[in-house]
């Protein structure tokens, strides 16, 4: 934040005027951003084309005329003015780093709250609204208050079939939906360093569910190995000061962690899976910016290989990006899932926020690898959503009810 504000140091609580390195907008918010620009009579953006990334992911391909028209308008205005990824690339928070628009130390904002995902790469990355985004497009800057930081010290090794989704659900359950309100989360310790890039993205992604402004992992060799082939600029990691002061330290022993489930209707309503095994499900969703990556699809395929999902369950899979989709296709993962009875969608947000495919009916229960389970989040107000890891989702699809992935 100091670098972005052109200062040597900044203090907690200080308000800075920060230059924005990257702004991301999805096709969901872009029509209203365009309404704003038209209301202001502005045709030209102040931010350069390579700093503004617009990604089509929420309702693609469009399933209604109003959406098709809105998307057409966005395409027509923004093509040539920004870096635009149309509907054949993937979910915004996966695409931004896959395509090399994220680097350690950057200051990134996005008109979607899960923009925090980029913190996995050692960037400061936060969600903003669409009018705020309009302001950024026209000024290249944003005001931010420097947050206090909570250190999340992770140690030990997760057991088989326990994954970073379980760790972040556990943390949110422990600190609560406002436990990190206005604060940064810094994920540290051997547990953080040993975590894959995909795993780090899961944890950073859900920082916002505890109210977090940012959720950061220090950039290390894993970060550079992932980004270097994708990023054209030289990469310079930002490390925490050795004498950094944290407001609080939360310790997580990963070795002792059981699979976790967030029960209806809040994300912090978290319990170990054993508390809810046996609850009947109608839908199992695997995908989203939280858990739609190759390792997520692979663990589900490992559990479902040669078996059939329960006759009472619909399983829907949406890989997070075309790159993921192709990799899963080529290594047999998608074939395994299809043969087990799953439906594979194009990479898109699907019904994570009831905007597209796989809507829940009245009285239905879903177990989902997504990030929010508010009432009505995935369809009917009379439906229920349990949030869980990909392994738990797959084990449950097999059983026809919520099931412990360690036991199948």
């Amino acid at each position, binding site marked *: 934040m100091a670098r972005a504000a052109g200062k040597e140091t900044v203090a907690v609580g200080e*308000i800075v005027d920060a230059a924005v390195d990257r702004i991301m907008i999805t096709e*969901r*918010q872009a*029509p*209203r951003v365009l309404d*704003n620009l038209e*209301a*202001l*009579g*502005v045709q*030209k953006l*102040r931010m350069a084309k390579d700093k503004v990334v617009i990604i089509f992911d*929420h*309702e693609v391909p469009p399933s*209604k005329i*109003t*959406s098709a028209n*809105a998307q057409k308008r966005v395409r027509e205005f923004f093509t040539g003015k920004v870096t635009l990824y149309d509907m054949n690339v993937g979910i915004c928070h996966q695409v931004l780093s896959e395509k090399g628009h994220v680097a350690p130390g950057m200051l990134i904002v996005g*008109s*979607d*709250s899960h923009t925090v995902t980029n913190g996995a790469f050692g960037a400061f990355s936060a*969600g*903003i*609204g*669409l*009018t*705020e985004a*309009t*302001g950024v497009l*026209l*000024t290249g800057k944003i*005001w931010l208050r420097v947050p206090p930081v909570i250190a999340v010290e992770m140690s030990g090794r997760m057991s088989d079939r326990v994954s970073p989704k379980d760790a972040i659900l556990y943390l949110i359950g422990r600190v609560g*939906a*406002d436990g990190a*309100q*206005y604060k940064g989360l810094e994920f540290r310790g051997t547990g953080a360093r040993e975590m894959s890039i995909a795993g780090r993205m899961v944890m950073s992604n859900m920082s*916002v*569910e505890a*109210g977090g*402004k940012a959720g950061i992992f220090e950039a290390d060799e894993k970060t550079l190995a992932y980004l270097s082939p994708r990023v054209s600029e030289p990469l310079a990691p930002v490390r925490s000061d050795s004498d950094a002061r944290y407001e609080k330290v939360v310790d997580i022993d990963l070795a002792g962690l059981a699979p976790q489930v967030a029960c209806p209707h*809040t994300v*912090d309503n978290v319990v170990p899976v054993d508390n809810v095994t046996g609850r009947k499900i109608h839908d199992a969703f695997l995908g989203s910016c939280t858990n739609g990556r190759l390792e997520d699809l692979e663990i589900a395929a490992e559990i479902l290989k040669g078996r059939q999902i329960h006759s009472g369950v619909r399983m829907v899979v949406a890989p997070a990006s075309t790159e993921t989709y192709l990799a899963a296709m080529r290594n047999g993962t998608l074939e395994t899932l299809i043969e087990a009875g799953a439906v594979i969608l194009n990479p898109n947000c699907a019904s994570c*926020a*009831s*905007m*597209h495919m796989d809507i829940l009916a009245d009285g239905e229960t879903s177990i989902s690898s997504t990030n*929010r389970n*508010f*009432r*009505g*989040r*995935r*369809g009917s*107000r009379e439906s229920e959503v349990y949030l869980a890891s990909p392994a738990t989702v797959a084990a449950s699809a097999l059983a026809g009810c919520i099931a412990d992935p360690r036991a199948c």
Partner: protein
Amino acid sequence: MLLIKGNAWVFGDDVSTDDIAPSVYLTQYLPPEKLKEIAMEGIDPGFYKKFHAGDLIVAANNFGCGSSREEAPMALKSLAVGVVVAESFGRIFYRNAINVGLPVVACPGISERVANGDSVSVDLETGRVTIEKTGEILQGEEKPEFLLDILRKGGLLEHLRQTVVPELMAE
């Protein structure tokens, strides 16, 4: 303009932006008159029918948590909510509210002292919140001048229109 008085509708902790503007409506790109009708539908269906223009919303912790959807403060603005006073807010909702010209004030202690229908007045400039039935005055957050400026102008768009757009047009 920054002195607001009205009758309160009281909510609890962790009212999400899904509660305020349910997900299912977002790709319908509803205009203001339609957004008004879905305001608070996730937690209180039909809220717009009983709400009177100028009434206030009072809430406990973390009001507006979750998704960054600006349709949430837009819906409350369409409903003509005078101000939202809460123990605390989700950060993105807080910023979005100011940006669309919906006054918001964080005020510790408010949620225990107000019941549905109570009259409350709010001085946005000082952050002071008065509970009319008892005369008690609570000290809410004092905003930096640049945020008060945006609220006085009615939102960020108007601020951009006055400051940034003339510069851009001249370039």
